[in-house]
């Protein structure tokens, strides 16, 4: 069947991920603006829209990252609630999709589905949900339920949550109602709701998902419209596409049903040399000496301030067996001693100082595109030609002007090459991504 064979669209699109936390966004340069003023968000969103970006992403904060038992001080931190900010941005934008990262563990399905429907209606069909899961009790300390979910159950729980949300969005018989009642009895919660909102101009919010484990990929292949992937480099992207196509077809969906937009960073210049110089400057501001030491302290579980950031990695051993979840989900679970041995060997091997080593570990080397506008455009055109990805979700390293050069210089180069939209296709996110409208499930509400 042709729907089982992947067809490259020949196009790529961009999304923008306003991070609001962590070391990727530099704050030490005079150009670095506010991370919380509405004007920063407005500038970035309107710039992205000028560049025909498909989507504007926000992450979700559930607890502040900590360092040795206190809030981490060295990186950008403090960000707004995603859906509240996106509802405000809906008022000052017309076409760009509005993507809220929202957790399935510390939200209730009926409430979250309702709020996402609201955002979708308020924005005229531009809302999306980036589905994430968490399980740790440390995050749960901010919520009524506390920690209640086993790590192993997180996708099972998330999938039941997403299916319940989809039934809520399917519930109105006609655009004016009435709604059918939605019931769900799960291990951790029950839902019994008669949904209040009609379908939107794009039927229901678009679903993004970012899981990368085999379970996470299968979950995305069954449920998601777009994967926010971690594989932007060409060969890895091609391989990831092959894997996701196989999983989507196995899940009974078409080979093109699930789109892929990897996380990425762009450091550009008029020439390759200028871009490389800019990259060195960006890196030095992303990971300063204090951040380099603090990064190791998370894994060593002890203070290392007596070590020279420009010297070798500490010879003393870590005091924690497992690294702390307080550092954020990406760090959770690594064995500290084993990791320290491995890193010391690696740093020695490559002749890297603490600062150079940490920079190489944290700077998203695998997701950075560095070069002249034309060279990067040529490279991206190749992704479009083979269909390695459907687009890139760009994290600007500078707020609020971090998209300016991309929109002013890279986008026109891509448009000239015929691989990037010159206009929005429609007014909804689903139209602009070229996704099919879901078919309403006739599945009864009682499951």
């Amino acid at each position, binding site marked *: 069947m042709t729907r089982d064979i992947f067809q490259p669209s020949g196009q790529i699109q961009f999304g923008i991920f306003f991070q609001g936390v962590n070391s990727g966004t530099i704050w030490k340069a005079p150009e670095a603006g506010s991370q919380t003023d509405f004007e920063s968000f407005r500038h970035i969103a309107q710039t992205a829209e000028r560049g025909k970006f498909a989507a504007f992403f926000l992450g979700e904060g559930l607890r502040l990252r900590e360092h040795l038992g206190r*809030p981490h001080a060295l990186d950008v931190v*403090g960000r*707004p609630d995603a859906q509240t900010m996106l509802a*405000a941005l809906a008022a000052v934008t017309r076409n760009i999709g509005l993507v809220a990262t929202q957790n399935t563990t510390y939200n209730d399905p009926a409430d979250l589905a309702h709020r996402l429907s609201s955002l979708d209606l308020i924005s005229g069909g531009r809302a999306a949900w980036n589905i994430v899961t968490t399980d740790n009790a440390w995050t749960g300390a901010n919520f009524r339920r506390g920690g209640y979910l086993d790590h192993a159950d997180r996708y099972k729980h998330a999938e039941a949550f997403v299916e319940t949300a989809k039934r809520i969005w399917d519930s109105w018989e006609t655009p004016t109602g009435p709604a059918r009642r939605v019931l769900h009895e799960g291990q951790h919660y029950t839902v019994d*709701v008669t949904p209040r909102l009609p379908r939107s101009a794009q039927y229901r919010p678009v679903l993004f998902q970012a899981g990368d484990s085999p379970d996470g990929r299968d979950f995305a292949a069954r449920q998601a419209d777009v994967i926010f992937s971690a594989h932007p480099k060409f060969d890895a992207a091609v391989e990831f596409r092959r894997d996701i196509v196989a999983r989507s077809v196995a899940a009974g969906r078409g080979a093109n049903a699930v789109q892929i937009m990897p996380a990425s960073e762009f450091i550009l210049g008029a020439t390759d040399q200028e871009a490389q110089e800019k990259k060195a400057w960006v890196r030095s501001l992303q990971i*300063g000496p204090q951040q380099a030491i603090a990064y190791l302290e998370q894994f060593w579980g002890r203070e290392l301030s007596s070590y020279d950031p420009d010297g070798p990695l500490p010879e003393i051993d870590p005091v924690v067996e497992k690294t702390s979840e307080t550092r954020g989900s990406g760090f959770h679970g690594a064995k500290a001693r084993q990791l320290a041995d491995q890193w010391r060997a690696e740093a020695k091997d490559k002749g890297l100082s603490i600062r150079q080593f940490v920079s190489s570990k944290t700077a998203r080397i695998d997701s950075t595109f560095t070069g002249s506008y034309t060279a990067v455009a040529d490279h991206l055109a190749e992704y479009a030609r083979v269909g390695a990805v459907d687009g890139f979700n760009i994290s600007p390293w500078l707020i609020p002007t971090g998209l300016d050069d991309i929109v002013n210089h890279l986008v026109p180069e891509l448009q000239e090459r015929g691989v990037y939209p010159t206009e929005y296709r429609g007014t909804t996110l689903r139209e602009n991504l070229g996704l099919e409208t879901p078919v309403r499930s006739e599945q009864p509400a009682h499951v």
Partner: protein
Amino acid sequence: MSTFEERKAGFLAVELDGAGYEGIAAAVLAAESAGFHAATFKDTPEAGRANALQRAAFAGPVTRTIAVVPEIDTVYTEPFHVSTQLASLDYVSGGRAGWIATAAVSPEAAAAVGRSFVEGDALAQEAAASIEVSRRLWDSWEDDAVIRDVATGRYIDVDKLHYADFETPADFSGAAYSVKGPSIIPRPLQGQLPVLAAASLVGEGLVPSDAVDAVLVSAPTPELLAAEVRDARARLGSSVAIVAELDVVLDARGQSAATRQVPSPESGLARFVGSAADLTELLGSLLNEADGVRLHLAALDVELEELSRLVLPELRRRGALRPPVQDGTFRDVLGLAPAENRYSTTAVAPLAAGK
């Protein structure tokens, strides 16, 4: 809080639920142009109603003066989310956000999130707990916590961030919970958002009066409203602003109010039916007693037009309305002093010096 002289000039709020999700910008701009001080967004559990907080957030960037004040339930919501959503609303509205804290009496809302139905005294306990969580989280970052100190590499001063460490009290009827903090967003622009609640939810044995900045007072008829306002003032003291609730049907577009086909008012809400001139008189006298009046309009566009043309200009002429503050905060509208931070490490209170 306010002296009698100040109180004579009051504020007017208008409820905009009727604008739906497609007419938010037009309705809030019309209300702002008419000179209303605040727009409120009910969270009616009816079909077709979008989330109140998001409607308020949408209204934020399109306006400059009017406060945007959503209703948010405290019983079946997560206090941590509510707090950060409201703080975010304050950012997107430039410090013009407020919160009408409600306690839903709703078996449907309970079933939707799989919780036990809460009623009776437990409602005020839930509301009090959620308000306390929000207030602690709003203070959990001091105003100057973001220091961007390049020399030491510190973006924030961690000494200016604080754990909220909230726990429900021992006599809490519902499921006990705790909230650790700090907030995920810096302190709101206003420091503390003004919190409003129905007067019936506030007082001894209920939500403590010092937990709220204003109460909404209802009466079955307009004639009884002034007495209710006086009762609430006597019961709650002068530190809580009193807002009278009034439903309005006006003579409009050649039709007398009495003959217009309009939906019945919400139960328990006083309804005024009559001319713009009579409404002006009523509001003038109510504003002598209350700090503000919130109007519920029978038909949003029809009543807004009459109010903006005939009622608000006359009230302004009489000095019954506070002048709107361009780029002011909702705290300014309510005449509230800057919010002190309960965790503040920098401001040394004079009384504490001798300790």
